[in-house]
């Protein structure tokens, strides 16, 4: 007799049969791979090098003749005996040369997908920006789901006054619209940083998972296996997280995949407004912020790159999240 397939095996089979879901999963995996590669410094580590002329157009558009003069290596300034910084500059240039940067290298007039204001390669910048945006989305969604699960488990499992307390807490948080909550917390936490955005999004986003997880715990706590665990003397904590949690973890997973999409979008908006990533860190939001002014000058490539990358990832992630929900919870539509 063979063991009957479990929830995850069945879900994986259902997912495998869904071609759209597998396509979406492949796209998501590609993005995650690019995050891993850029985080380890294997790609896009040198995105801050000014490899091209300012606003170099994409190769398929062709070089911009008005920028040709900029591409020539700059002639070094004539020696000036009265320059008080001459000694310091020489030392700095020697240091740069040792690090392998040619001081006056010829700059390229075109790049595969153009360059930004400083001559950074837009493709590498998009990969690097994606790293920030995706990591923020994933970590914040994890924090939100972890909080929601903890509160939901306590609330659903213990009921009574504990439940009343968390329900009150929930109604307080849902009375304030999410975006206003995010902006309020952003105003209070004066520091700008990746950790700050993760905290803002994670601490304000737990309400959705909380409601669903709480309902699951209420349903499960009266089941026979929990009563059996109770009979052998398992502690409340053990019943909640060792016995019940594996049976409701699919809800948490689906919630997390839905939140990731929302948080990536939210991070982009926050960074765009300047409440997100600090200066010097690139994200898709800060790219869109620069791109807004570039568009008026007719430099559309940075906007297109960041917008397309984000739209592709978010489409794939939402399709996958929908399919995951269908596969894990076939009762739902």
């Amino acid at each position: 007799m063979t063991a009957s397939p479990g929830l995850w095996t069945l879900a994986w089979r259902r997912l495998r049969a869904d071609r759209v879901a597998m396509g979406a999963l492949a796209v998501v995996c590609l993005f995650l791979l690019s995050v891993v590669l850029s985080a380890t410094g294997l790609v896009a580590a040198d995105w801050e090098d000014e490899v091209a002329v300012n606003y170099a157009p994409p190769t398929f558009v062709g070089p911009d003749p008005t920028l040709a003069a900029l591409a020539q290596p700059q002639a070094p300034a004539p020696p000036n005996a009265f320059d008080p910084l001459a000694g310091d500059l020489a030392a700095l240039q020697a240091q740069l040369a040792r690090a392998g940067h040619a001081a006056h290298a010829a700059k390229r007039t075109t790049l595969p997908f153009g360059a930004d204001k400083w001559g950074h390669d837009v493709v590498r910048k998009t990969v690097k920006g994606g790293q920030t945006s995706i990591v923020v989305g994933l970590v914040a969604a994890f924090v939100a789901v972890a909080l929601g699960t903890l509160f939901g488990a306590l609330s659903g499992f213990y009921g009574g006054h504990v439940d009343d307390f968390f329900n009150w807490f929930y109604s307080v948080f849902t009375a304030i619209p999410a975006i206003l909550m995010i902006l309020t917390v952003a105003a209070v936490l004066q520091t700008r940083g990746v950790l700050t955005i993760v905290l803002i999004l994670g601490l304000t986003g737990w309400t959705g998972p909380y409601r669903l997880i709480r309902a699951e715990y209420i349903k499960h706590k009266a089941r026979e296996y929990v009563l059996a665990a109770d009979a052998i003397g398992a502690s409340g904590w053990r019943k909640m997280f060792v016995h019940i949690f594996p049976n409701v973890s699919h809800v948490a997973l689906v919630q997390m995949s839905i939140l990731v999409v929302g948080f990536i979008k939210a991070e982009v908006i926050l960074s765009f407004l300047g409440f997100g990533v600090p200066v010097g860190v690139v994200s898709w939001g800060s790219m869109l912020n620069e791109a807004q002014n570039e568009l008026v000058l007719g430099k559309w490539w940075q906007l297109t790159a960041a917008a397309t990358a984000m739209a592709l990832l978010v489409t794939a992630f939402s399709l996958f999240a929908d399919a995951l929900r269908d596969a894990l919870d076939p009762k739902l539509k």
Partner: protein
Amino acid sequence: MLAYILRRLWQMLPTMAGVVVLVFVLFNWVGGDPSYLLAGKMADAHAIAAIRAQLGLDAPWYVQLGIFVKQIVTFDFGNAWATGEPVSHIIATRLGPSLTVLVPLTVLETTIGIALALAVAFVRGSLTDRLVMVACTVGMSISILVYIIVFQYGLAYRLGLFPVQGWGEHFTENLLRYATLPILIGLAVSLAPTLRLFRSFVLDEVGQDYVRTARAKGLPERRIVWVHVLRNAAIPIITYVMANLPALLIGAFLLERFFGIPGIGREVILAVERSDFPVIKAVTVYVAAATMVFNLLADLMYQAVDPRVQLA
């Protein structure tokens, strides 16, 4: 009915108290001391002490909480730190422009969303339905920033069909001239998620027995859709629209910012940028109160739509 409303209002008190405490804790303990911010760069200990005394920051926490509650009840949050304008005046004057954009936007979004959802739900499973759903998913995944940047550049800056930004003195001028493009963009952004949601509401109804009965007695399909199904699908739609109205007030902040509309959303962004705490506190507390009141209104509207619903 009156008893029901009174009981619901009574039940709001603990939640409202929670909101007040949450905002108080956020601004008084999580946030830094605002007197350093207000005193400016050349602050000496004396000036900071004076500001602390003026804001009541040197008083014990329960006195400060009392001041905050009094501010909420009397609608008097003092003056905005950045501009010195009274906060109540800020909220009163910014509400009009926000509503000029939001009311037409909500009405259009809801009617178009319902019409499309009914149309799509009745050809469910067909190629049209699937194409529309894919288009919605793709449409939703493009950032609202991209919609605004591209439409503002393309339609207003390049083609000159609309003013790039601005706001006038007269209501009709604002509505017909300055608010048109923001409303169109808002519609383009919100229609996809609305349509997806309304479609699922309608789909819950089209499989019901009463639809089969209506068909069996020979009603035209148009009557089944627009009378029978719509009335039943209206309940979740009302909840959704009503519950989202106060959030929309803030949610349109990007439109207001890009198009220079002096509304509540833009004011919140400015206040966050300037660390203008009184404005943020006031907006947060009143929007939370509005959210609760609108939820109650939604429940009252249920009964008007569906006589089976008993408010008890």
